[in-house]
């Protein structure tokens, strides 16, 4: 109904391979980016309706952006490359703690070699990205078992990474600069002289990170590497026979996915929480990311965003609505109700469309393009 594709022909391959070949989709994207980059900051700075309090920014938009980024990273590994991983929480933690160490100066006393490596505190941006890199290295390390182990067995193998790093950041005080209580504070967010402090600035920072990395991820996934991942996912024997090296494909998937998750972890700690402890990156975080990817739609970057929105906002909605309506329910029953409704929604969605929201939307879009015809 909304699509008027007649006359939109493709004169070059670049046009044909564009992310959004149809003009109506490009217009929708432009509107969305306009709202995100200009609309929200304007509304927030003038305290207009939805942003009267910065609750919407702090408690919904900021975590949504960061978790969406992490979901994109998870989707690359689970959705595109077919390697189920329950270790995303740990990779976020590695991103956060290595960024923290890099931002506050690293000092490795190699006593038996007689000297110590000392890296001065790096600027925040560098430490976030290097944090991501460290997560990528850990990803590669824990990606090696994926060459022999497949399916749900691999999921439990990645759990080893999750619990190991949970334990490491809890027990080895070196990571937390020997802070007495084990909880660490984020360094000052100084980006080339600009200090990011207010919720709107934090929101824009995250939005920038998410947009850039989502585009890079989308390019990777459309390109040759993305096809290799999907080949490994669909039928790895056939992939091997046409010249794809399973080692290279799987480990790049682990590396890229962990890098994105690592950066998301650093942002989660520095920008959203401010001060955190390992419990913030526990097994529940890994499971949450896996839910987002499956509900959102495996193998779809857009799906990751929708999944993140659903898993993050649904519980809050289920909490806020009863209190807003003033229903006489105790918080206890509300929370229980929230569990029940959330669980049954997940089951209902999976039955309705096992491939998640992304598939639902693409079917809807197809119907609109063919409107009023059924096929």
């Amino acid at each position, binding site marked *: 109904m909304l699509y008027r594709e007649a006359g939109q022909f493709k004169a070059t391959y670049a046009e044909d391979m564009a992310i959004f070949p149809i003009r109506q989709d490009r217009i929708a994207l432009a509107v969305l980016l306009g709202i995100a980059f200009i609309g929200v900051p304007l509304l927030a700075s003038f305290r207009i309706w939805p942003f009267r309090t910065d609750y919407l920014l702090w408690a919904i938009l900021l975590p949504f952006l960061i978790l969406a980024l992490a979901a994109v990273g998870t989707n690359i590994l689970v959705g595109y490359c077919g390697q189920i991983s329950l270790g995303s929480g740990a990779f976020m933690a590695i991103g956060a703690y290595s960024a923290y160490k890099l931002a506050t100066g690293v000092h490795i006393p190699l006593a038996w070699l007689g000297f110590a490596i000392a890296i001065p505190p790096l600027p925040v941006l560098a430490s976030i990205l290097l944090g991501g890199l460290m997560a990528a290295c850990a990803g590669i390390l824990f990606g090696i078992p994926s060459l022999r182990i497949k399916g749900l*067995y691999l999921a439990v193998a990645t759990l080893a990474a999750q619990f190991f790093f949970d334990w490491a950041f809890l027990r080895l005080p070196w990571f937390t600069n020997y802070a007495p209580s084990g909880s660490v504070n984020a360094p000052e967010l100084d980006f080339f002289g600009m200090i990011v402090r207010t919720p709107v600035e934090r929101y824009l920072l995250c939005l920038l990170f998410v947009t850039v990395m989502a585009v890079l991820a989308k390019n990777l996934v459309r390109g040759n590497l993305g096809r290799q991942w999907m080949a490994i996912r669909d039928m790895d024997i056939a992939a091997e026979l046409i010249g794809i090296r399973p080692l290279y494909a799987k480990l790049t998937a682990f590396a890229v996915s962990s890098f994105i998750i690592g950066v998301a972890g650093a942002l989660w700690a520095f920008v959203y929480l401010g001060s955190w402890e390992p419990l913030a990156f526990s097994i529940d975080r890994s499971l949450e990311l896996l839910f987002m990817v499956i509900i959102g739609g495996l193998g779809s970057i857009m799906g990751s965003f929708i999944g993140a929105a659903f898993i993050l906002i649904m519980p809050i909605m289920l909490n806020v609505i009863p209190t807003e309506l003033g229903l006489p329910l105790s918080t206890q029953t509300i929370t229980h109700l929230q*569990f029940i409704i959330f669980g049954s929604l997940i089951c209902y969605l999976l039955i309705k469309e096992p491939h998640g929201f992304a598939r639902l939307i693409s079917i809807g879009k197809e119907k609109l393009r063919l409107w009023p015809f059924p096929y």
Partner: protein
Amino acid sequence: MIALGQFLEVLIGGLMSGVLYSLVALGFVLIFKASGVFNYAQGAMVLLAGLALVRALDLLVANGLPLWVAVVLAIGFAAVIMAATAWLIERFVIGPLVNQDGLTLFMSTIGVTFVIEGAAEMIFGSDVYPLRLFPTDAWFLFEGLFPGGILVNKLDVWGALIAGVLVAGLAVFFQRTKTGRALRAVADDHLAAHSVGIPISWIWFVVWLVAGLVALVAATVWGTKLGVQFSITFLALKALPVLIIGGLTSIPGAIVGGLIVGAGEKLAEVYLGPSIGGGIEYWFAYVLALAVLMLRPQGLFGERIIERV
């Protein structure tokens, strides 16, 4: 020199606690073996069974029934609850998702976990309810030989016994009985089983019911150990490595896996832990599982995965 007594005690303590984990792991294996579904909700089912049992027990005892009658009735009541849950799950979740891939089914069981946790606590209350079904004090063996004797907790022994009986029962059930064979057929290829005339939905109902009963048994033991409360759901995480080492598809594997994990964990914690910061028990089981998987990608007793072109 490490005191032999201490070593034996830690070993026995480890083996016993490992067996208790395998009680939970059995539920996982059962459902995976019969329907290829990795049931994350097993932990929540243990909680549900425990809550149903303990609240019924308290109610009955409060009304003055003799203990033994109350226990039997409570167990009956809990079993009925588990049967109803099994029916609901099969009817509304597993049934409609019949030929979806493993990951979607795994995800749906996570949805079920949320529902069970919410419903259980809403109906039966979210407090701590002590459960006293087994003696919880300990024996001290060979006090003569070793200083302070080797401590063996009675509850663990009871747990081990029950686990043994359960495994034997299930093994017989799977091998000998008609429904057992049908279960194995459905596990291999439910389409073929369907074509042979095996009523798929009834079979899956039976599977989830048996898994529910196993959860009830686990609840009796773990309820006594910890008191029936929300934290029981964390057992699922502890049972995963047991499952993996034993292999997702083998019943005896669950027990062997439990023993290895239990002993390994405790010995590592007591001897290796203090030197590198303690609390390594948390991840040691998983690293152990990872090592086993590297040797044999489908667990010690799991079926080999063969791929043909």
